[in-house]
């Protein structure tokens, strides 16, 4: 959608999607690779207390910010392809929020790049979550460990 790099598939959408079908299509689109890794993020029910999660985003920045992160991953691990789908709007417990997939020659690159993408999407993609429960609503605050997780990527070759 916003991707300048043809190896990147990026979708930011309100609509639900089918992670299984998406993964199969992603694999089919990248013949010749030896490894595909995927991650699917799901709305937790927080012990059945959460009634909904509302995701807000900065529409003009989301695409460019995710593209920049994904292009780093593609270059660093020589990926044949990367996929990022992230939803916004009101989601219910059990719904899929987002998905990341990477296609590489070997599993090490596919795993590491998917991990890298998730770490950066958590703290550098302009999304904000508000959790609704019977008692009211609360903005989900960023965790210090999420920010700290970014540092490990600069220590590695």
């Amino acid at each position, binding site marked *: 959608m916003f991707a300048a790099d043809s190896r990147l598939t990026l979708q930011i959408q309100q609509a639900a999607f089918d992670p299984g079908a998406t993964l199969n299509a992603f694999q089919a689109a990248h013949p010749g690779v030896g490894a595909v890794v995927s991650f699917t*993020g799901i709305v937790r029910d927080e012990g059945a207390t959460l009634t909904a999660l509302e995701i*807000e985003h*900065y529409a*003009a*920045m989301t695409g*460019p*910010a995710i593209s920049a992160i994904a292009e780093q991953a593609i270059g660093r691990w020589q990926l044949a392809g990367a996929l990022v789908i*992230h939803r916004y709007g009101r989601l219910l417990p059990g719904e899929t*929020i*987002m998905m990341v997939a990477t296609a590489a020659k070997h599993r090490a690159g596919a795993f590491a790049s998917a991990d890298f993408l*998730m770490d950066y*999407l*958590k*703290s*550098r*993609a*302009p*999304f*904000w*979550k*508000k959790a609704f429960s019977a008692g009211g609503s609360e*903005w*989900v*605050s*960023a965790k210090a460990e999420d*920010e700290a997780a970014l540092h490990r990527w600069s220590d590695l070759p």
Partner: protein
Amino acid sequence: MTMIEILYFAWLREKIGLPGERVETSAQTVMQLIQELSSRDDVYALAFADPGSLRVALDQELAEFTSPLSGVREVAFFPPMTGG
């Protein structure tokens, strides 16, 4: 004086009560803009009371509070992001 578009997200948007606004400003840096807004109304002073809990993007790119505003058209303020 230049016109810039300011955007607010998440709890900052709720505290200020607006998703965004156009303002005429002579601020040279992000910090000066925050000071200018804060002196305008208590609502801003309260919302920006702890800049360390906020992030800023200039023309859709993450920036610092010391970043200059020259040539910038859109300034966005928001809490740390919670994607994924």
